[in-house]
């Protein structure tokens, strides 16, 4: 190959690269609340900094004396409180860490699902087809084509209450795997074995519990080495994904 050919090929390749990077599917639509949330967070950040400058080294003493001032001191981990402002319901602290950012890229704002219920999660129902699920606006990547067989999808929800869902081409929504979402009885990842055994009529000391919801599905609860729930799934009775 001559050097000239190689240059032409390289130019062609980089043109293709430019075109790919300009792909419309990379567009994200900000939510209506995004701007206000960012401005509010920027204002809080500035205010905290100003308080820090004003009180300097005596900050701790001043806070201890004044009581209410404590609220204005930045707490590690609560930096991004956009979601707390925007959410109508309280959520477990773990869910807050990323929610502020994710709320911006959500295409739709469905009513807040907080529970992994007996039939599904939020507006998602066990057995829903991929097309129906896509219509709810809850998918993180709604542009993904329907898969053959079983495929795993992430949701676009703010708090990441659900780690992912598995959809079967044959049987629809097959598995919902929780991250922080809890059952209506309050069992979630991190719950103790005692809590599971108190909440459901299960055999004692199993490594995995299967708890029928009575609505076409069951909870699959896995207990980890620390005797706490390491995984919580809602599974469709009729599904071929495992």
């Amino acid at each position: 190959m001559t050097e000239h050919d190689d240059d032409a090929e390289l130019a062609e390749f980089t043109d293709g690269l430019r075109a790919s990077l300009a792909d419309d599917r990379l567009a994200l639509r900000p939510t209506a609340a995004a701007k206000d949330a960012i401005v509010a967070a920027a204002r809080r950040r500035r205010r905290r900094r100003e308080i820090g400058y004003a009180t300097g080294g005596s900050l701790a003493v001043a806070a201890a004396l004044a009581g209410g001032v404590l609220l204005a001191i930045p707490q590690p981990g609560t930096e991004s409180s956009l979601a707390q402002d925007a959410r109508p319901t309280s959520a477990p602290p773990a869910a807050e860490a990323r929610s502020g950012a994710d709320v911006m890229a959500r295409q739709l704002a469905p009513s807040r699902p907080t529970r992994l219920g007996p039939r599904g999660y939020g507006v998602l129902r066990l057995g829903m087809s991929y097309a129906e699920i896509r219509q709810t606006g809850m998918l993180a990547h709604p542009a993904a084509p329907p898969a053959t067989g079983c495929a795993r999808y992430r949701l676009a929800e703010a708090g990441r209450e659900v780690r992912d869902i598995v959809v079967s081409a044959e049987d629809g929504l097959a598995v919902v795997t929780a991250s922080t979402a809890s059952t209506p009885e309050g069992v979630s990842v991190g719950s103790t074995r005692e809590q599971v055994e108190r909440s459901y009529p299960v055999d004692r000391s199993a490594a995995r519990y299967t708890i029928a919801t009575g609505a076409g599905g069951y909870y699959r609860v896995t207990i980890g080495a620390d005797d706490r729930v390491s995984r919580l799934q809602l599974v469709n009775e009729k599904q071929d994904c495992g």
Partner: protein
Amino acid sequence: MASDLADFGEFVEAELSGLLRYGYVLTGNPHDASDLVQTVLEKIGSRWPSVRRKTTDPVAYIRRSMANAHISRWRRVKRETLVAETPEQRGYTEADPFEHEPLLRAVGQLPPRQRAVIVLRYYEGLSESEIADSLGVSPGTVKSQASKAIATLRTRVGTPIESDG
């Protein structure tokens, strides 16, 4: 003070879509894109008047901050992400909107600094010396990272991968 932030609000409103898009190209997924845009804009907003004084092109300034934040964040979370890839993920195909876009997928698999160089060069259209300034590295580094990245991309895209099965 209130008017400073009103001005910042207008700026955010006008630029947010573009920055999210840039973030998506840079990070390869919408969650990290939002995360990155939000983190950087909050910081910029909290000292908006001084940013305005310092630069005539705040968008370029923000894009540079995002590229740097992305590189350093990736270093921080690398270990955690590797641990989070659980074995049970096997047997499923991860739904990917760019399943049929091998080039974009390959860009997403580049190391973060190389990806930042590619995005700044071929998406933002910056010159090598501008990229060097943006990322705080030498023009030589930009040149070598860019050619390494292009070589990798050409190899990956040039070799068809059996996707069935």
